């Protein structure tokens, strides 16, 4: 029990609103405004987590997004959320949190003990050197064990019920970070009337000003913040987003941000999202993201109770929490004095301040010494000891460059150590959108490199320290953004007076107290990477910072090295004897802090993953028992099952009815493209392998298109409705692709052609009516068309009416039967369908689905999607004769390359099962009954039971297949445990090869 609540202070908490929550099942109380970390520490809990590898006990290190240790799991079942930093969770009534990576409990973790024994072995790279045997699959075994020990929290497996929204925002100036620099920038830009968006990840604007003792424009810092916020809220051109993290900087000045809308609430509105993703399109971006304090690297530096000075300040100022009673403060930059003052003022007994620099800044040290706290110059924190948390530290002397020297040392008993290893500007976004960061020796850290996008960094993020300078920097950044936008730049100043303003340069100290027998000195706390791991990586040659990272996992934890990277690079640079800029830093990547996948996915999940396309007759199909099947974006009826029917029963019945009487099928999903203009026929001649200019008005023709590489792309009929007016149909799958091709040809390749194309797929609803009685049905329902063979011959296109609805009647057959298609405006589709359906009843008409459609076309040997698989040529498909020999067309130049005309190509054939057993799509064809290690001759593309032939048949692509006609081959389907089936190779035109029925 070492932390406690202070009677005063706590800018963010509301003492009148106690909040009850649980940690590892224990009921606890905090105040509204507390973070989980502050509330836990206030109640004396400081053991908050276990480390990744060694399961070491850990407390809070930082108080913001840099926190590596205090990860907890929130919620349960549908709300379970692992790996959340206790330092950023705002508590609410009923919050449930659990510690992670420990068993059976956080205090008594069974893994701690064995791991502390073997930990000499568990050094960086350990896994690469062992577990290679015995036996080839030994790793599979070890891996199971290791995976269980690794990982952090456990994910839920239940569906999340929350909503996630995504939205877009536009801003002239986006300001990321609402600390003093960000506020100065926002005010400056906002006052000019520019559209400004400011985002801050915290629950309030103000950033580090909450910990500041400064005055700005005569007001205490916090009051100035309040005034600024009030002013911004009154500006209609300024939008403020809090609890919103700008996590990624993308090309074209697009910034991704996630707003946590309701995570802090006990009562959540189900209509509001949990998180909202913002895609921000910014003219200019001002990055005022502040800086992160680094820990010191010394043995025992991970003991609970060793904290960053900034975290200590935050706990005191924002939450009125003192994290200990007796403290030592150590570091090598001016911030340790501010931390010390904060502790002293909070009533914590500070035993000593250790400043590694040879002479401390007198102005800052004086008030501290006046308060009776000894300030030791040239002093390092040598090591810390304790069992479950920190109990004592040893201070020792160092030389002017921070290297330990022999002699004086002093030991203090305490329960709190506040450290500062210097400040690292938060350059994540700048680095994502800029050149490599630059090393600044003055502040011993990297600052932003040259921008690649339109941004300016300011404040601590740009390496500027001292409140006055930071405010001025914010103004400067806003002005340069406004200038870049071509807007006038205002005069704007904010005057600060800061008693804690830094005075002296920091000193770089890398790692201290290492040596034989010393405890581990951690650099990356979460991933348990120690100073000696860095040394080992160096020894084994993993010296590039990127190798160091990958070999030791340094910086790869959830905090992405926010507190560890610079310490590690510094150590590696020392080992290499090279300056840090030569060593460089690892690459910064989005996200800056972890982002929920829900926010990135938004509402495009589950049933709404992609939109659905429905034909006008969709509901009719469903109401009439259709099994609807996804075909790309469309839904199509597969079969209309009657009670007791299987899919097979249904399609056989439907196909048989078509051959014997009549059936209708919804063909609305076919792609339709208007092709109009004086050069329309010329365009069609070029894009189809066969000729269209010779087509007369009122007629349709089947066409096949190739890709430029000479393989078959698409097929369909195209109708000439007028001299300059064609309607092209495409396969359902390629409708969009064909249109885009035509547009490309017209815009880019042949701009001289006067042709207009437009997608008309949605304009038309269509049905095909097929069967010997199709004409009789139509005669009762279609008006204004002469349906005689002379009036409407095969491939004729006629205009007529069904009731009041204007329709196009085309005599086209995919089934080999006498057949027609009727197309009408989409909104009339259902009426026409119902009219034809009703008219057909006396003739035994049934609706049929895609299965029967397939059966009918397979019986006729017509190719479709499974045969047009992007690898087949015209001649493979038996369509070689279609290719025009007169007019050149797309794909012709490459369609006869040697391998594309080789005699052993897989070509279209028919297969007839000799065994009264079904053939299945994807089954292969071999020469003998040998399912193993037999070269496959080809595969079954489209099988069916043929009611017309009373046999199982299939279309197939078989090597040199046409030469094999009459041969017996074997169809094998090992993956589905199919029995090998003997088949005969036959012509693909199984049924009515002469086409007599077309006219029947």
């Amino acid at each position, binding site marked *: 029990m070492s932390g406690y609540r202070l009677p005063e202070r706590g800018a963010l908490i509301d003492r009148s609103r106690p909040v009850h929550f649980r940690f590892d099942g224990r009921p606890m109380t905090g105040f509204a405004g507390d973070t989980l970390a502050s509330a836990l520490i206030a109640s004396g809990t400081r053991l908050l987590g276990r480390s990744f590898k060694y399961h070491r006990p850990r407390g809070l290190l930082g108080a913001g997004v840099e926190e590596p240790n205090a990860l907890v799991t929130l919620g349960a079942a549908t709300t379970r959320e692992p790996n959340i930093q206790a330092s950023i969770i705002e508590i609410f009534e009923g919050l449930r949190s659990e510690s992670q990576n420990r068993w059976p409990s956080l205090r008594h973790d069974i893994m701690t003990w064995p791991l502390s024994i073997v930990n000499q072995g568990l050094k960086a790279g350990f896994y690469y050197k062992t577990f290679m045997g015995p036996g080839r699959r030994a790793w599979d075994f070890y891996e199971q064990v290791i995976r269980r020990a690794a990982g952090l929290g456990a994910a839920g497996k239940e569906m999340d019920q929350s909503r996630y929204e995504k939205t877009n925002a536009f801003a002239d100036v986006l300001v990321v970070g609402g600390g003093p620099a960000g506020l100065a920038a926002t005010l400056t830009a906002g006052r000019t009337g520019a559209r400004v968006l400011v985002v801050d990840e915290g629950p309030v604007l103000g950033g580090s000003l909450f910990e500041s003792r400064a005055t700005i424009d005569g007001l205490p810092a916090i009051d100035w913040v309040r005034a600024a916020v009030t002013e911004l809220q009154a500006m209609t051109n300024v939008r403020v987003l809090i609890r919103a993290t700008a996590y990624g900087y993308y090309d*074209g000045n*697009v910034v991704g941000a996630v707003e946590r809308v309701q995570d802090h609430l006990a009562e959540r509105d189900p209509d509001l999202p949990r998180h909202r993703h913002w895609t921000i399109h910014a003219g200019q971006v001002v990055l005022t993201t502040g800086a992160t304090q680094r820990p010191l690297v010394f043995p025992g530096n991970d003991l609970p109770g060793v904290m960053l000075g900034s975290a200590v300040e935050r706990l005191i100022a924002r939450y009125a929490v003192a994290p200990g009673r007796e403290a030592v403060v150590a570091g090598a930059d001016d911030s340790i004095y501010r931390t010390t003052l904060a502790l002293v003022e909070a009533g914590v007994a500070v035993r000593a301040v250790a400043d590694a620099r040879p002479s401390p800044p007198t102005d800052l040290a004086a008030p501290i010494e006046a308060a009776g706290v000894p300030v030791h110059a040239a002093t390092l924190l040598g090591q810390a000891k304790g069992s479950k948390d920190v109990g004592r530290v040893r201070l020792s002397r160092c030389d002017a460059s921070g290297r330990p020297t022999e002699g004086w040392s002093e030991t203090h008993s305490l329960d709190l150590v506040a450290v500062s290893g210097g400040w690292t500007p938060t350059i994540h976004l700048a680095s994502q959108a800029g050149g490599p960061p630059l090393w600044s020796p003055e502040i011993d850290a990297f600052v932003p490199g040259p921008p690649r996008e339109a941004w300016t960094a300011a404040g601590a993020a740009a390496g500027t320290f001292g409140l006055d300078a930071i405010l001025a920097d914010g103004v400067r950044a806003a002005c340069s953004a406004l200038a870049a936008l071509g807007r006038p730049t205002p005069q704007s100043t904010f005057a600060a007076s800061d008693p804690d303003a830094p005075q002296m340069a920091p000193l770089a100290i890398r790692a201290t107290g290492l040596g034989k027998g010393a405890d581990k000195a951690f650099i990356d706390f979460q991933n348990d990477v120690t100073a000696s791991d860095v040394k080992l990586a160096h020894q084994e040659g993993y010296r590039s910072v990127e190798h160091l990272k990958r070999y030791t996992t340094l910086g790869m934890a959830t905090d992405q090295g926010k507190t560890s990277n610079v310490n590690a690079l510094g150590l590696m640079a020392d080992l290499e004897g090279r300056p840090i800029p030569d060593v460089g830093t690892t690459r910064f990547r989005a996200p800056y802090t972890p982002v929920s996948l829900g926010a990135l996915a938004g509402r495009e999940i589950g049933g709404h993953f992609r939109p659905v396309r429905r034909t006008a007759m969709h509901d009719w199909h469903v109401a009439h028992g259709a099994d609807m099947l996804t075909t790309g974006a469309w839904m199509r009826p597969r079969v209309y099952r009657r009670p007791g029917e299987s899919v097979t029963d249904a399609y056989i019945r439907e196909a048989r009815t078509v051959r014997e009487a009549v059936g209708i099928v919804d063909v609305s999903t076919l792609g339709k493209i208007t092709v109009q203009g004086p050069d329309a026929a010329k365009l069609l001649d070029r894009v189809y392998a066969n000729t269209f200019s010779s087509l007369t008005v009122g007629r349709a023709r089947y066409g096949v298109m190739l890709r430029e590489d000479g393989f078959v792309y698409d097929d369909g009929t195209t109708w000439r409705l007028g001299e300059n007016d064609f309607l092209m149909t495409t396969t359902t799958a390629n409708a969009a692709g064909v249109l*885009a091709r035509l547009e490309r040809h017209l815009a880019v390749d042949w701009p001289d052609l006067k042709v207009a194309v437009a997608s008309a797929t949605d304009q038309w609803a269509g049905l095909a009516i097929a069967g010997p009685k199709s004409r009789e049905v139509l005669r009762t329902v279609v008006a204004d068309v002469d349906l005689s063979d002379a009036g409407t011959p095969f491939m004729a296109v006629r205009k007529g009416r069904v009731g009041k609805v204007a329709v196009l009647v085309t005599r086209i057959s995919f089934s080999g039967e006498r057949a027609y298609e009727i197309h009408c405006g989409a909104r009339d589709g259902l009426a026409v369908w119902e009219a034809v359906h009703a008219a057909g009843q006396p003739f035994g008409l049934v609706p049929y689905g895609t299965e029967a459609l397939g059966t009918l076309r397979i019986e006729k040997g017509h190719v479709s999607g499974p045969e047009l698989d992007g690898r087949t040529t015209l001649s493979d498909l038996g369509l070689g004769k279609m290719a025009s020999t007169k007019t050149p067309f797309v794909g012709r130049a490459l369609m006869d390359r040697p391998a594309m005309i080789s005699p052993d190509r897989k070509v279209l054939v028919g297969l007839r099962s000799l065994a009264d057993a079904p053939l299945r799509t994807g089954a292969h064809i071999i020469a003998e009954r040998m399912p193993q290690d037999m070269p496959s001759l080809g595969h079954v593309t489209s099988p069916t039971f043929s009611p017309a032939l009373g046999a199982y048949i299939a279309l197939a692509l078989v090597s040199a297949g046409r030469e094999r006609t009459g041969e017996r081959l074997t169809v094998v389907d090992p993956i589905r445990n199919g029995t090998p089936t003997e088949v005969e190779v036959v012509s693909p035109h199984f049924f009515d090869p002469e086409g007599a029925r077309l006219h029947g």
Partner: protein
Amino acid sequence: MRIPCPVCGLRSVSEFTYEGDATVLRPPLEADGDTWFATVYERRNPRGPHAELWHHTQGCRCFVEVERDTATHAILSARLVTPTGAGI
């Protein structure tokens, strides 16, 4: 990434379909196999400025020739590919 469509203005890349190297011009259809082979298969694929076609599929459906640096994704210029004086 945002692409400046000369017709529609600055739009998200997700509205466009990439159509590749704009310097590869289609030869006449009657050109020989070698010429078409080069057109269909061979690309300079430079690191640096690259002239490329983008189809504004979810917008005006025009083709835009964009010069873009493939090393940085910076967009250097954009122009509409369209029959000259197309009834604008």
